[in-house]
């Protein structure tokens, strides 16, 4: 049986499969199953049973999210599916691979999701810089339309679906789903107040599901091969496979599809080849820039949502950023703080004013002017910018590497103060 459903068709040394090759490898079987009578309730139930959790970072159960969309005759007729393809989390490079490597997998997944929630229109909210993704997806959508998998009355099911590729113009905050919806409506991408949640009142006030690219790409396998097969994939507590990436000074950085539940050590040492010669592992962010640092002592923790949460971090996007012993940890956290300060939408005060303040203090440390008072201000911001204090999750995300960095790299902050310079540069 297939054990790499997300990447089975991907070979980046050649162009992605066209629709005929994709179909020949079990592609679009789920749409044929729908044509043979699989109901939208069945699809919803199977995705719930699969245990699939959102792969965009938050890890919310996908079937449960879908179930909040109102159903039935008295629900709003127009509903929307939006795929969040605005990949911009620092150190995250998985959705690009899926879209450029196998666009039909995502389109098939989108048809399944739209069918389940009764959406007749779907938007791919694509990062503007992902030019190849746009070309590849546009061509694949045209092929799917030609085959009758998209458009009106798909395979005589009475179900209609149009997919529009929307290219964005570059802001990290668009990854926040309500900010994304504002951007799609042509507004500044400030997040919206919740409730109402998008599932009930989203795009143009209609029920809307926003799912990440990788989440969507899990769906064809679940419907085609079944829930039992899906449950057989994992080596841990959470279900399915996931794309895991490693960047930083390892021997062979890259992105691989692996079952959930493998030890982090296996990803880092077997797949990424371990550290480059002469370097040691100092720490790592397990799932992009908004996660807490983990240490070498955590290498035997498994790549599961709950297991990583137990040691105070998050699996999030599953793309690991590795810090070696010759790169300055204070500089690395400072780089992340500059990113978050730049990408704050400016709507709420703690984020708009707090993050640039934090960024400025890191500049002071970098230039040998950091002091104990500054250090205290950084500590204070871990609280001031934390969950519940801001309008959305951007600033709390920034406090993950900040708080854990202050905790794990205390000696490095102290050395910057004492030696009045960055000790890694001198």
């Amino acid at each position: 049986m297939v054990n790499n459903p997300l990447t089975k068709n991907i070979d980046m040394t050649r162009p992605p499969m066209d629709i005929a090759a994709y179909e020949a490898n079990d592609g679009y079987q789920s749409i044929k199953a729908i044509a043979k009578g699989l109901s939208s309730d069945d699809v919803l139930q199977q995705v719930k049973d699969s245990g699939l959790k959102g792969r965009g970072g938050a890890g919310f159960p996908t079937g449960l999210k879908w179930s909040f969309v109102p159903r039935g005759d008295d629900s709003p007729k127009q509903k929307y599916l939006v795929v969040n393809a605005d990949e911009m989390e620092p150190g995250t490079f998985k959705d690009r691979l899926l879209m450029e490597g196998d666009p039909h997998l995502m389109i098939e997944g989108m048809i399944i999701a739209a069918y389940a929630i009764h959406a007749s229109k779907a938007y791919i909210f694509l990062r503007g810089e992902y030019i190849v993704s746009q070309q590849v997806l546009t061509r694949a959508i045209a092929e799917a339309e030609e085959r009758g998998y998209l458009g009106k009355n798909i395979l005589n099911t009475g179900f209609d679906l149009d997919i529009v590729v929307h290219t964005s113009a570059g802001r990290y905050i668009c990854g926040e789903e309500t900010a994304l919806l504002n951007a799609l409506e042509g507004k500044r991408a400030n997040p919206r107040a919740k409730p109402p949640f998008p599932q009930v009142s989203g795009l143009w006030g209609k029920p809307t599901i926003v799912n990440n690219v990788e989440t969507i790409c899990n769906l064809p396998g679940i419907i085609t091969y079944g829930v039992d097969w899906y449950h057989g994939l994992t080596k841990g507590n959470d279900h399915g496979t996931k794309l895991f990436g490693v960047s930083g000074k390892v021997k062979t950085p890259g992105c691989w599809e692996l079952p959930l539940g493998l030890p982090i050590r296996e990803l880092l040492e077997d797949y990424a080849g371990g550290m480059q010669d002469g370097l040691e592992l100092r720490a790592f962010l397990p799932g992009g820039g908004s996660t807490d640092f983990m240490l070498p002592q955590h290498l035997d923790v498994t790549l599961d949502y709950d297991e990583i949460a137990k040691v105070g971090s998050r699996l999030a996007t599953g793309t690991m950023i590795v810090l070696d012993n010759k790169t300055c940890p204070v500089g690395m956290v400072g780089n992340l703080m500059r990113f978050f300060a730049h990408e704050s939408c400016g709507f709420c005060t703690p984020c708009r004013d707090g993050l640039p303040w934090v960024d400025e203090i890191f500049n002071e440390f970098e230039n040998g002017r950091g002091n104990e008072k500054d250090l205290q201000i950084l500590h204070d911001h871990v609280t001031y910018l934390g969950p519940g204090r801001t309008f959305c999750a951007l600033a709390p995300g920034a406090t993950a590497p900040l708080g854990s960095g202050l905790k794990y790299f205390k000696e490095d902050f102290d050395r910057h103060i004492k030696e009045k310079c960055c000790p890694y540069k001198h």
Partner: protein
Amino acid sequence: MSNGDVKMSNDMIASTATRHRKLSAEEIAEIEHEMTLYPDKKAVGLEALKIVQKYQGWVSDESLLGISKYLGIPASDLEGVATFFNLVYREPVGKNVILFCDSVSCWIMGCEGIKKHIKDTLDINYGETTKDGDFTLIPVPCLGDCDRAPVMMVGPDLHRNLTPGAIDKIILDYSKSKSAE
């Protein structure tokens, strides 16, 4: 506010209304196509800015006012969107825009040295354009190709595993493509 100020601001409003540039037939055709994809024409504002930028290289005040007039979106709303997004240029840019990734993975892999090399070679900093108008250097958040860091885009092209030597070649290639035209 004195009477003089009132007069001046009225003059400014009157002058901006007449300063709009009439959109070209190609621009209008693309904007009209976008309007078929969304139920609300306001949603097309950002698309229209990008379309105009594709043809004009950047979004001038005159272009922005032209879009505002064509779509019936207040110029202030459109400006709010234009200034929010990184990839909408409200100032002229060079022939080739370098989007330089300086996020965390590229930083670990030494992008600061690469940036310095670009700066030394082209004599431009972030937000600046070379004197010959060939290159503009702009920072960009993580480009999502971290296993091949450091990376940057030049125009629509992604360049990976950057080294100072690779930068020299890239700059030469894009400069050549101009002289070949």
